């Protein structure tokens, strides 16, 4: 193994960490230097993820690659174990990509109270947590990275956020903290109750995610499995967020600064769904099977509820936030089918949602910057006052409602299709019912998204903005948005870019789950 292979994954958390420390040492007045350091750090991290992707052996997508296993906390038998397979690779690249773009977008856009030093340091700390979660292969390591994202996002919302920022930041923190406390108890219960000796001779208890995924909860009675799964479910479902734990999300999104919303939508929400795929399903397949109808049910309620919530909004950003609830509902429905088709769709859906909703939040932020409001009743005529931005908004709306040929389609359509035939043993009529509800949800989605587009972009500008000079897309915005827009098209036309990466690992996992259940 050469130098890069053994260090690449560590670098994806180490570079942002070093960058954050360097930033803190630079005096606050040196703004240009601060921005360059942040840009270089995120670019280097992104380049590392691309390097990983280019050296990733797709034919061995089921195995952990770039695997590193070192001593960390021997006393509790926890290791610094990192590695990626086809499931985590797309998420890791997405995280590196979006964070880098967020730094570019921020260049001249720092929200009040300005302070680029603290803002960029928080973004870098956030990136440590996000990348770390996707590469961790040890439950305790996963937990630590999963939690690292809390503090920076809390401060980002609370310091740079909108008028109601204190309430929103605390709500965000509290919900997540509650979930992760129970999640930690579940991890500990897994450690003590699951016997991994069939796969790791000589060791009975382990936090190693690979080992735990292989034994499928051996030695656990069904009822204990179900309880442990419930703890993890709370931790992950709050993060996703699933109905009825979603209430923190609209507040957090509405109050967060633009970049905060983008990172929240594009990456942080994915941590929860990723946790389901990576931890909850393979480690406790029988419990997953028992819980799947409930998860699917909450998912479709989320789809409809999110859509109805959208229709009740007057604030553009809040509407996009509710649409996230609906979209993550599709992702969770796909996961709950426990089929390889569904989980592939879920991962694609996560990537697509990250790009598209991230873009929508970028546009909402830029409009707020231009108009000083996000109230849709006051906006209008974007296509005449800033046509380029208006067209981009239209494009993203089309992508978000799942127009074939754009990325959103491949997240949504297979998700619905997968619930036509869920994994063996799950109630087919129930999941077909879910499928119908979800399909109705797509109609709603088209409804609220087009409604927003019509309110914001069509018509003539309202009198109060009739003479206002609205800036069209600036050069920094172009630099941020073009890569995302291109990727939305590329993934829409060649969905195999993602499916090719994920399919082997997902199939391998679902086969293992199926055999564990039967």
């Amino acid at each position: 193994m050469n130098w890069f292979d053994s260090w690449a994954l560590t670098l994806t958390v180490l570079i942002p960490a070093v960058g954050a420390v360097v930033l803190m040492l630079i005096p606050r007045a040196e703004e240009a230097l601060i921005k360059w350091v942040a840009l270089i750090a995120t670019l280097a991290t992104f380049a590392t993820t691309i390097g990983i992707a280019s050296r990733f052996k797709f034919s061995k997508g089921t195995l952990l690659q770039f695997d590193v296993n070192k001593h960390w906390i021997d006393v509790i038998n926890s290791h610094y174990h990192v590695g990626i397979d086809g499931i985590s690779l797309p998420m890791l690249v997405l995280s590196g990509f979006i964070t880098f773009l967020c730094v570019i977008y921020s260049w001249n856009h720092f929200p009040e109270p300005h302070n680029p030093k603290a803002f960029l340091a928080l973004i870098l700390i956030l990136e440590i947590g996000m990348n770390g979660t996707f590469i961790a292969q040890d439950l305790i390591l996963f937990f630590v990275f999963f939690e690292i994202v809390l503090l920076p996002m809390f401060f980002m919302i609370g310091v740079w956020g909108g008028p109601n920022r204190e309430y929103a930041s605390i709500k965000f923190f509290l919900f997540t903290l509650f979930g992760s406390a129970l999640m930690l108890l579940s991890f500990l219960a897994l450690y003590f109750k699951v016997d991994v000796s069939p796969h790791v001779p000589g060791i009975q208890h382990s936090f190693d995610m690979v080992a735990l995924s292989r034994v499928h909860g051996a030695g656990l009675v069904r009822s204990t499995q179900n309880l442990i799964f419930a703890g993890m479910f709370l931790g992950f479902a709050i993060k996703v967020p699933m109905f009825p734990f979603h209430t923190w999300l609209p507040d957090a999104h509405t109050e967060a600064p633009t970049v905060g919303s983008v990172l929240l939508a594009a990456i942080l929400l994915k941590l929860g769904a990723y946790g389901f795929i990576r931890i909850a399903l393979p480690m406790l397949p029988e419990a997953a099977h028992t819980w799947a109808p409930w998860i699917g049910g909450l998912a479709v309620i989320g789809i409809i509820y999110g859509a109805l919530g959208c229709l009740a909004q007057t604030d553009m950003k809040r509407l996009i936030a509710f649409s996230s609830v609906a979209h993550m509902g599709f992702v969770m429905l796909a996961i709950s089918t426990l089929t390889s088709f569904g989980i592939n769709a879920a991962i694609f859906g996560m990537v697509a949602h990250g790009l598209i909703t991230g873009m929508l939040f970028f546009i909402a932020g830029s409009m707020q910057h231009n108009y000083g409001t996000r109230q849709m009743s006051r906006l209008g005529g974007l296509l005449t006052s800033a046509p380029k931005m208006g067209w981009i908004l239209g494009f993203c709306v089309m992508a978000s409602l799942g127009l074939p040929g754009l990325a959103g389609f491949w997240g949504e359509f297979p998700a619905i299709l997968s619930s036509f035939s869920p994994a063996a043993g799950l109630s087919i009529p129930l999941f077909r019912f879910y499928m119908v509800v979800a399909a109705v949800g797509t109609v709603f989605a088209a409804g609220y998204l087009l409604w927003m587009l019509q309110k914001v972009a069509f018509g003539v500008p309202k009198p109060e903005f009739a003479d206002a000079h609205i800036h069209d897309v600036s050069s920094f915005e172009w630099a941020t948005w073009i890569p995302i827009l291109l990727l939305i098209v590329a993934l829409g036309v060649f969905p195999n870019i993602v499916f090719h990466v994920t399919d082997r690992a997902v199939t391998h996992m679902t086969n293992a789950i199926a055999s564990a259940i039967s």
Partner: protein
Amino acid sequence: MLAAITNATPVFDWHALAPEIVLVATIAVVLIADLLFPDRDAWQSSRIASIGVLAALIPIATLAASGHDRSMFGGAYVVDHYAIALQGFFLAATYVTILLSADYISEGDYYKSEFYVLLLTSAFGMVVMASARDLITLFVALETISIPTFILAAFRKHDRVSNEAGVKYYLIGVLSSALMLYGMSLIFGVTGSTKLVEIGSYVGTHGTTSLLTVAVFLSLIGFAFKISAVPFHFWAPDTYEGAPTPVTAFLSVASKAGGFVALINIVYFGFYGSNGRGAHAWWGAVWVLAALSMTFGNLGALRQTNIVRMLAYSSIAQGGFMLVPFVAAGIAGAEGKIGVAAESMSAVVIYLLIYGAMNLGAFAVVIAVARRTKSAEISSYSGLFATSPVLAVTMTLFMASLAGIPPLAGWFAKFVMFRSIIDAGTGWGIALAIIAAVNSVVAFFYYFAVVRRMWFAEPAEGDRTAIRVPPALAGAIAMMGVVVVVIGIYPQLFARIGERAF
């Protein structure tokens, strides 16, 4: 009963006793220096005291390196890994307390040398406590810890609140000592020995009797007062608020840890019984103490507007978390799972080490901020991030660590606590684990009330320059900050100390 009398000529292991000897010598030097030097040079006493404490750490290091257990006075005084680890902790905590006190005491209207003499005497009691394996040694050590702190709590002698603090603390201290002593006398009566090991083997073979249970309960209540566990906690907030802030830091960290070490000694080496049979007698009571302390400590802390009172209630809640591993050991012992006990006790030690670092750090910032604002109201922290970003960021680290947010040291303390109770299993264990989990979320509210003030609120009118922090205090804040971050990322350093102790 004869065992207590037939002690042969005591053998002194001078190496093992070196930390205690260095401390006593330092106390003497501080006293004599006070007589020789004029009053304006009184700041020298803080220097002498800190050098003495650091010097006492040298034999700790050599003892740790030599690596074998030393037992004296027929097993009543033991210097093993556990004792060494805690002696090191007590000395380090005392050193940090001296750093916190240096400017506070020299700038105020206080007796200066006397302050350090009392502080060091209390520290001496703690060092003895870590080695005490005999009821009488343990009691003497506990009183040596407590009596100087009664005086220290009332050290702001012109302040009625401080006087009240001292008197309250004194009365409660005496009451708890009396209960404890009565309990100990009953234990001696039943088991015929004051040595914890012998008590343990008596319990191991005979099991518990009702008289022994009463005795254990009485001494537990005594300890509950000392560690301010709910419902025996009501003195703590008033005492903490009234005492000079460095003393409060010392009380809430070192003195509390002293109580916990006494509890470990008496519970693990004694009441647990050599095979866990004794655990039936007490785990239920400790379960209740733990659950109440966590819950009511938190509820109390939520209502505070004064940061010192908030930290007082928070330390009650943290004490509740530290009691959880005792319950784990008890439950497991009663079930016959012996292995959990050692792991649980090392969880307590790890928790103490981490709690000490983060709480001392928080108090250091409180003292630094109060130098400017002359206030301990949480509202006086408004906009600290704008005026003194470094202080605000370090305070955020300490608050987040106390709340148990990774990657700061506090998460690992909570983690080992959860680990012990989940390992013990059983419905009661899981129930306590869930209570602890909910409480650790509730705790977030009051710790982050301070953080919100610092980051989200506008600074008050007036002086907006950065707060100047004297070097000793800055050093303390920096050291504790480094510990909180480094241990958070690489907990193995402390975990290893805790593991080797048992």
